[in-house]
């Protein structure tokens, strides 16, 4: 038995001026996919403050190793070998333990293993491109992969995505659910990308750039990038109004 109760307070209001707006015409796909009416708000109910949890026992041994989890025995994916690690926190700077973190990416040449990706760069027979892990008691996660390549995409006539890894993160409540992308420190293409530029502030963009951490490398094996993720925080239940029937 742990001496702590699960937190059940309502979540802090999401700062929608910090996130990219739904309609961001520089990223053309948003034009017909952005709701145009104002979203409706109401107090969090049990539907919002609860969410699914996943046990560490569901993880396979190679789930957090993209260099091996699709590779033939004795082989591994091609590309610059890296470790990505970090902590999942909430807006109160508290670690978020035991949450599922999923990630996917292009291979080192910038090609996705997907029938709709027709980029010239070849598939790597030993690279699938997906992985997952669950944060530990202190909110930490890590995985091994190869650094993905940049690639062109059909938005403008000559537009390129900077190297990135997609992340989907669960919290403890369903409205904490978040999808984002991690970029790499020092990549000049970050600032030219129409998808990155849907984010209004430079500060918010910098929060998506993983830092090269040469103290956390695996010598003679892999460099390390640190990427912390912040989920919505929730009110303390200490003085919460009595929730009738709750």
């Amino acid at each position, binding site marked *: 038995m742990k001496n702590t109760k699960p937190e059940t307070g309502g979540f802090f209001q999401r700062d929608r001026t910090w996130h990219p707006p739904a309609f961001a015409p520089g990223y053309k796909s948003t034009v017909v996919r952005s709701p145009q009416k104002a979203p409706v708000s109401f107090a969090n109910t049990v539907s919002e403050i609860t969410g699914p949890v996943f046990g560490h026992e569901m993880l396979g041994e190679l789930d957090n190793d993209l260099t091996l989890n699709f590779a033939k025995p004795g082989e591994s994916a091609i590309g610059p070998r890296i470790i990505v690690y970090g902590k999942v926190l909430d807006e109160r700077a508290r670690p978020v333990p035991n949450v599922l973190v999923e990630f996917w990416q292009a291979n080192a040449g910038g090609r996705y293993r997907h029938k*709709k990706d027709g980029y010239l760069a070849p598939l790597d027979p030993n690279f699938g491109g997906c992985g997952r892990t669950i944060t530990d008691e202190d909110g930490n996660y890590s995985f091994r992969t190869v650094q993905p390549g940049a690639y062109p995409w059909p938005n403008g006539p000559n537009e390129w995505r900077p190297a990135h890894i997609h992340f989907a993160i669960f919290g403890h409540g369903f409205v904490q659910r978040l999808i984002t992308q991690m970029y790499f420190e020092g990549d000049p293409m970050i600032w030219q990308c129409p*998808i990155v530029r849907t984010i209004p502030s430079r500060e918010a963009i910098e929060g998506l750039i993983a830092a090269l951490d040469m103290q956390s490398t695996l010598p003679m094996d892999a460099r390390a990038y640190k990427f912390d993720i912040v989920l919505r925080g929730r009110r303390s239940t200490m003085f919460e109004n009595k929730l009738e029937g709750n």
Partner: protein
Amino acid sequence: MAQPLIRLKETASQTAGPYVHIGLTPNACEISGVYPEDLGISMVNEKTRGERITVKMRLIDGANAIVKDALIEIWQADADGLHNSPSEMRGSADPNFTGWGRQASDENGVFTFETIKPGRTPFPDGRFQAPHISLWIVARGINLGLQTRMYFGDEEAANAEDPILTRLEHQNRVPTLIAPRSGDTYSFDIYLQGDRETVFFDI
């Protein structure tokens, strides 16, 4: 000056992109052997309590095209109105019901969930909400995951007193949240834009 509040900003959202299924439903997009099965594909087993239902959803964009590269997650209470979550303080949910589902669409853009009809749950003021399923929708062109709910077309009485449905300023938009029933199947079309735009939430 006052004491500083220790607060971090939420990590900014980015679109799930066109290849979200590589990460979240890899077996459905021909990446097999990494995970035994896609997470969230199965919500029920033979012991799950409650009425078995099928929910079929479609997502329609502002040009009236069916969106086929999206991903939808759902979250709902069990037949007694309890959630399978450590944050559920009112009791223990049915251990044979996950409450959470995740699907890619088929080639026609239909998302199919095999689940059960949820029980009613309380609003913070103690009134009961109508049975509903919470949705989270992500795709290329969606910068921040969309949140909405699906209510049940054959729950007229509960819907008529639901604290959220009754407080919508534009009552003519209530039907955008209600899925009609035919047999054991509910059909829910989600419109991203236009006259029939679904009510989305900031919650």
